[in-house]
């Protein structure tokens, strides 16, 4: 028998937060055991979870700090690397001021690490700290925050199994959160109705009772028409509206003319189906609305998020078991990174930087002189990239790969090349790291301890199982060491992630009762808000009142706007992007996993058979996709599961975002990833 000791860690991929039991023997992970007794995943894992070990011992893992030199990359000592970084940072601050620096924190880091990164940025004197939530759920924060009080999921995902009606808008959990999909399937087994609004017939839509294949970017029209039907047929929950919300009259007036016939013209969904969907959702005793990137990644992201919340509020489907609003997060700790204030406009605990009281609180808590924190929000991810090489001279990117993830990546690449100093902390030599001056090797999930917050707001502790390879170090240690070299050691007196969590507990009220000791005992973690040690946590939000000042939710009127770039004669197709089940975000990890990559090795583009026939394309032909921003090559997948006129490409390959749009939602600053006018050209020869 083997003597391996199982160590229960939290999976490093999506936001479901599955448990992975690693079998550790002689300081090495020997294998994976299914966490059968875990309340989160009950032993289930998706393809990516299984392949996680391939990342841990991947031969491409960075093992030493490396510095760019005229003769190429040369390995350097940590001492030298940190001293160089500190010196460059000091020089930039002296020459241009602290706002010439920008920090990219990471949703793949722990809460503690995100807290440290934002604290470092703010202690240095800038709010230029942000992370990839800007590219996924920024519009949830700006949309839901003022309406409900918090920009987070109201219920745990396991509640989905208790719903009578599940309405998915631009969300595809079957591929993106496969382990959570069992709760959807469970609801379906109990007879729940499944509604899916998506331009593609995704695996989620396969089990739908009603699929609404709408044109990309017209979600707002669909939701407005559903609200119109609900008010028209008096399906709203008047008691709930009267008792718990404000602003219903303005909302009602705004959807007075948005009837299903109007929406049918815009969305391409038959009016009859819109009416059926509205009836199903509104009349279900318990209903859940689940939305994801299909809603948020638009210039009208904030408005669409608000329309989703309006729909949930007027039907009273918020704040009880099986009734909730689920902005499902994509990454293991994107919720936590937001909670920790790794955002340009928000301090830890979602305190706005524009709030004088909040600033004063943090100044005194961190021991900074009064007035040290600026009153203006810093730059967001996309703004940093635009300002790079201009007002921003130095960028510290931790676990982020903007060259792949940001829209119109050619521009991103050019601007990053203009920087005086770019340091990248990552597991691998990513496309962004190739442009850096200094690359620091980081520890992977199993090589560091820390807490992570999943999409249920559930904080889980993931202990260290093994040592990092070579000289790689955990992010928290790198940030603390860098702070000490910058002469800011007094602000960073931490010896371990546990110490950092203690400070977070003092500073972020929602985490008040979440201690490392308690977390390591709690099998499924603790859902914030958890104000003190005796509090059991809050799995379901807003049961009695909303987190707004007066406890009432705000309803927002809806104003429809068309996507900024509609298909036209030159660019007749609408290109939309998304995830596939075998890959993950920028693909830095999954494209290096042999078992995942071997099953999905090419960038492909899905095209409707009618469109394919018109373009003379056959399955697996090579095509060139051309937008106003550039062109890329892909393999054509002819499938009836996309609407005519719509093309779909996954964004895990570096090419895809070369041609997406860099238009931003004015308040959330989230780019319009999901629509781009596009044309096709057939290329010679079969696909790769």
């Amino acid at each position, binding site marked *: 028998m083997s003597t391996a000791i199982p160590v229960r860690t939290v999976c490093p991929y999506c936001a479901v937060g599955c448990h992975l039991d690693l079998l550790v023997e002689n300081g090495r992970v020997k*294998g*994976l055991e*299914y966490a*059968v007794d875990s309340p989160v995943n009950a*032993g*289930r*894992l*998706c*393809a990516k*979870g*299984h*392949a996680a070990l391939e990342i841990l011992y991947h031969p491409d893992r960075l093992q030493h700090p490396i510095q760019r030199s005229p003769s190429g990359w040369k390995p350097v000592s940590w001492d030298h690397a940190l001293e160089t970084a500190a010196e460059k940072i000091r020089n930039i601050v002296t020459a241009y001021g602290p706002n010439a620096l920008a920090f990219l924190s990471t949703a793949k880091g722990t809460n503690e690490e995100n807290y440290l990164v934002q604290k470092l940025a703010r202690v240095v004197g800038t709010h230029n700290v942000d992370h990839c939530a800007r590219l996924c759920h920024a519009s949830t924060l700006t949309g839901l925050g003022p309406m409900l009080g918090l920009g987070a999921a109201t219920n745990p995902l396991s509640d989905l199994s208790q719903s009578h009606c599940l309405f998915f808008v631009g969300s595809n959990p*079957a*591929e993106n959160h*496969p*382990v*959570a*999909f*069992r709760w959807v*399937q469970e609801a*379906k*087994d*109990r*007879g729940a109705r499944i509604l899916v609004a998506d331009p593609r*017939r995704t*695996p*989620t839509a*396969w*089990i739908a009772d009603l699929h609404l294949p709408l044109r990309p970017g017209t979600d707002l029209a669909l939701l407005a028409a559903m609200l119109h039907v609900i008010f028209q047929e008096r399906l709203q929950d008047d008691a709930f509206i009267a008792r718990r919300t404000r602003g219903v009259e303005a909302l009602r007036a705004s959807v007075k003319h948005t009837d299903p016939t109007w929406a049918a013209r815009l969305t391409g969904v038959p009016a009859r189906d819109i009416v059926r969907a509205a009836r199903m959702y509104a009349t279900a005793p318990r209903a859940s609305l689940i939305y994801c990137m299909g809603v948020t990644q638009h210039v009208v992201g904030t408005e669409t998020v608000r329309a989703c919340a309006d729909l949930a509020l007027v039907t009273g489907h918020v704040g009880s078991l099986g009734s909730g609003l689920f902005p499902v997060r994509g990454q293991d700790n994107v919720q936590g990174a937001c909670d920790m204030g790794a955002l340009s406009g928000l301090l830890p605990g979602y305190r706005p930087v524009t709030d004088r009281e909040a600033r004063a609180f943090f100044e005194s808590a961190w021991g900074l002189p009064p007035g040290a924190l600026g009153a203006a929000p810093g730059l967001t991810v996309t703004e940093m990239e635009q300002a790079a090489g201009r007002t921003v001279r130095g960028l510290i990117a931790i676990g982020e790969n903007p060259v792949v993830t940001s829209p119109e990546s050619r521009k991103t690449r050019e601007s990053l090349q203009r920087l005086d100093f770019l340091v990248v902390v990552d597991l691998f030599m990513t496309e962004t790291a190739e442009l850096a001056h200094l690359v620091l090797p980081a520890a992977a999930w199993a090589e560091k301890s820390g807490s992570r917050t999943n999409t249920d707001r559930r904080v889980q502790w993931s202990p260290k199982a093994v040592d990092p390879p070579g000289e790689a170090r955990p992010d928290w240690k790198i940030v603390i060491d860098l702070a000490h070299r910058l002469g800011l050691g007094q602000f960073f007196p931490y010896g371990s992630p546990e110490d950092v969590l203690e400070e977070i507990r003092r500073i972020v009220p929602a985490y008040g009762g979440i201690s490392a000791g308690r977390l390591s005992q709690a099998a499924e973690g603790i859902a914030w808000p958890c104000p003190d040690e005796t509090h059991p946590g809050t799995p379901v939000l807003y049961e009695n009142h909303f987190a707004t000042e007066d406890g009432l939710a705000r309803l927002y009127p809806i104003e429809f706007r068309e996507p900024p770039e509609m298909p036209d004669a030159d660019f007749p197709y609408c290109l939309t992007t998304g995830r596939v*089940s*075998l890959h993950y975000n920028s693909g830095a990890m999954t494209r290096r996993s042999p*078992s*995942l990559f071997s*099953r999905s090795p090419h960038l492909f583009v899905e095209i409707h058979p009618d469109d394919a026939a018109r373009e003379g394309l056959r399955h697996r032909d090579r095509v060139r996709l051309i937008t106003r921003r550039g062109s890329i090559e892909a393999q054509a*997948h002819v*499938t*009836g*599961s996309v609407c005519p006129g719509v093309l779909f490409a996954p964004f895990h390959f570096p090419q895809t975002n070369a041609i997406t749009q860099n238009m931003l939602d004015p308040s959330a600053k989230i780019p319009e990833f999901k629509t781009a006018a596009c044309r096709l050209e057939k290329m010679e020869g079969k696909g790769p």
Partner: protein
Amino acid sequence: MSGFLHVDFRRCTACFACETACRTAHGGGLRIQLAFVDGLPVPLMCRHCEQSPCAAVCPEHALVWDQDHGVTLLADRCTRCGLCAVACPFGVLFVDPFAQPSVIKCDLCRARRAEGKRPACVLTCPTEAITEEPHHSLRRRRLTTPVFPIAGKPPRPFQGGASRASRKRNDMV
């Protein structure tokens, strides 16, 4: 008899968890894989046919069928000639002449079962599309949840007697 796998492909979401789980459990090789038709998946693995074409063509009788284990490979008899792969009607049996084991096919996770564990694909499937449930409970679940029509002709190649195995123990109810 128990332990045969039932696949309800209508619950399959093409997440590929079974494939990677199987690979992890066996240290490589695709013993279960998703076949796609019009973008829709059907998980396919050895069906442990009672009248197995693979066993029928094996010159050394290295593949044997029995009630409890389905089609089993007796590795010491196998000459790696590869005829079984050509005979398999479902294309789910592979022979790599220079690898060990040479015949790659679903063994119902024999090794895991010996340790008292469930087959990797069954354990990991997020939607319970692959189960070990005996027949009657699978049927009962369908009846209580009339979401999908209970349909089912057996697959074509196994008409008549040869279809017994696949009709009995595989995905059609």
